[in-house]
């Protein structure tokens, strides 16, 4: 007994202190059940478009099985440069301002480790993707959550930024379109955040993985604001919009010095992203827009369907402008997010994710993903309607 305790203590304290992810807890409950209708999945239901899969087959035919440059293959970096330029009007040099990463997750880790020294503070907004807080802690940084609010449509306000910033604030982590809320920022809201970053000499890490999936207005990137290119690491990847989660390809763009710093970590820990996946990503950026638009249209139709169904049921929600999530306000049912989710699962076999899995700011909400077929969504909405009758 004493031995196992002493071995347990060998695990780094910083790791011991990180709690199990709330989403994993919930996953364990869901996975004990059969025939669950799940609106809890954070990845596209589409299989990677055929032309992209075919490009990967071909790359194997041609014997592409080696390492690439640490930075990623130059032909893929060229495509990334063109793509980012077409979306943001900002040009990055493929030679030394673009790094191909193993998903945005790696890019995020590299970016944070490149800047953080013990005790540096990182501002990030909650509810948020589950990795932000632990990744900051792994780097011995101090995560400072900005609790975004329902009444602000889960957008960051200047007041909050000014209140939470200290002498030690080094980074601001931005993720819009947002997982889990589906919120996006307008141009003026992005400009407000840019002004805050510039006037306080803060570096911004912009996780824009969902930027191709907005439905009512185009995404506006913070790198497009004058003065921001030089202080921003822009992170994006192929997982969501091109339905390529399993390929693990992301990219980071930024000023040469920052990318070079991230590359130092990447070259010793990852070496490079798999070459066949890089080949597939190249095809996606070059010719995949047709498929992307078809998937986006489909997401939009499902989004409309869910919105209309919720309005019929008189259940409020955050306007889902981007990504493929709708954040539903269940506070009127007088249950916590977790209780509501578990009851819905037990009574109707429908899985959603409690908002609190994304931070305390998500209390009173559940996240529903519409990256699931319309047929499943129709069933889920019917079951939700039956479920809420219990409360009437």
């Amino acid at each position: 007994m004493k031995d196992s305790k002493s071995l347990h203590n060998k695990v780094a304290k910083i790791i011991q202190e990180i709690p199990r992810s709330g989403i994993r807890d919930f996953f364990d409950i869901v996975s004990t059940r059969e025939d669950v209708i799940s609106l809890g999945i954070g990845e596209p239901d589409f299989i990677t478009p055929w032309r992209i899969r075919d490009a990967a087959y071909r790359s194997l035919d041609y014997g592409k099985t080696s390492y690439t440059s640490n930075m990623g293959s130059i032909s893929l970096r060229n495509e990334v440069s063109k793509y980012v330029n077409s979306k943001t009007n900002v040009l990055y040099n493929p030679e030394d301002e673009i790094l191909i990463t193993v998903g945005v997750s790696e890019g995020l880790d590299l970016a944070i480790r490149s800047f953080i020294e013990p005790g540096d503070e990182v501002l990030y907004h909650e509810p948020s993707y589950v990795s932000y807080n632990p990744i900051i802690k792994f780097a011995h940084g101090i995560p400072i959550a900005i609790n975004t609010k329902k009444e602000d449509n889960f957008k960051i306000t200047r007041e909050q930024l000014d209140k939470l910033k200290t002498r030690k604030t080094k980074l601001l982590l931005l993720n819009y379109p947002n997982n889990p809320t589906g919120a996006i920022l307008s141009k003026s809201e992005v400009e407000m955040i840019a002004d805050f970053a510039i006037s306080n000499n803060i570096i911004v890490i912009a996780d824009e993985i969902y930027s191709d999936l907005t439905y009512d207005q185009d995404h506006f990137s913070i790198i497009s604001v004058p003065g921001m290119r030089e202080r921003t690491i822009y992170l994006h990847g192929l997982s969501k919009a091109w339905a390529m989660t399993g390929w693990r390809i992301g990219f980071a763009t930024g000023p040469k010095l920052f990318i070079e710093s991230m590359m130092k970590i990447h070259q010793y820990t990852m070496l490079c992203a798999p070459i066949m996946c890089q080949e597939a990503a190249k095809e996606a950026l070059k010719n995949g827009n047709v498929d992307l638009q078809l998937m986006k249209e489909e997401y939009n139709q499902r989004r409309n369907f869910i919105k209309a169904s919720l309005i019929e049921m008189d259940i409020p929600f955050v306007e889902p402008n981007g990504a493929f999530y709708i954040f539903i306000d269940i506070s009127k049912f007088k249950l916590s997010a977790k209780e509501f989710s578990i009851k819905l699962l037990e009574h109707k076999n429908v899985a959603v994710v409690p908002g609190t899995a994304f931070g305390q700011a998500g209390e009173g909400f559940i996240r529903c993903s519409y990256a699931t077929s319309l047929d499943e969504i129709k069933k889920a909405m019917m079951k939700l309607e039956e479920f809420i009758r219990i409360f009437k």
Partner: protein
Amino acid sequence: MSELINLLRKNGNETPENIAKILNKSLDEVKSEIHELEQKGIIKAYQAIINEEMLDQSLVTTVIEVKVIPEYEGGFDRIAQRISKYSEVESLFLMSGRFDLLVFIKGKTMHEAAKFVSEKLATMSGVTSTATHFMMKTYKLNGIEMYSGEKDERLKISP
């Protein structure tokens, strides 16, 4: 209107109530648009896509390339319409290239199809030659894959 048509192309069985939700329109609007499309003859019919091979009594599809002499004044239309009147004919297209008409027929047996070609089609005045192909297996029909082994293997919950 084109959004509605695309939706019905994918699923002709979708209810107007669901269509209204999907396209963010009112139910009345959707109903009247569908009615208009039907009245104008833009929507001709709603049919099911059948995986023939799973039926006990499946139908054989035959594809026939037909060369014809276009008629004075009638062009290809008259002869094409005459061929299309046969109930065996499922689809018929005027083509560019080395033949003129492409005819799809459905029958119970290959024999039945061969009989139709030799007795009805080849003997029709204006038809100069035919080339008959039997369809052996359907992999994809009207955008639907018949043999897709792709399954949803995602985790039930993920961040």
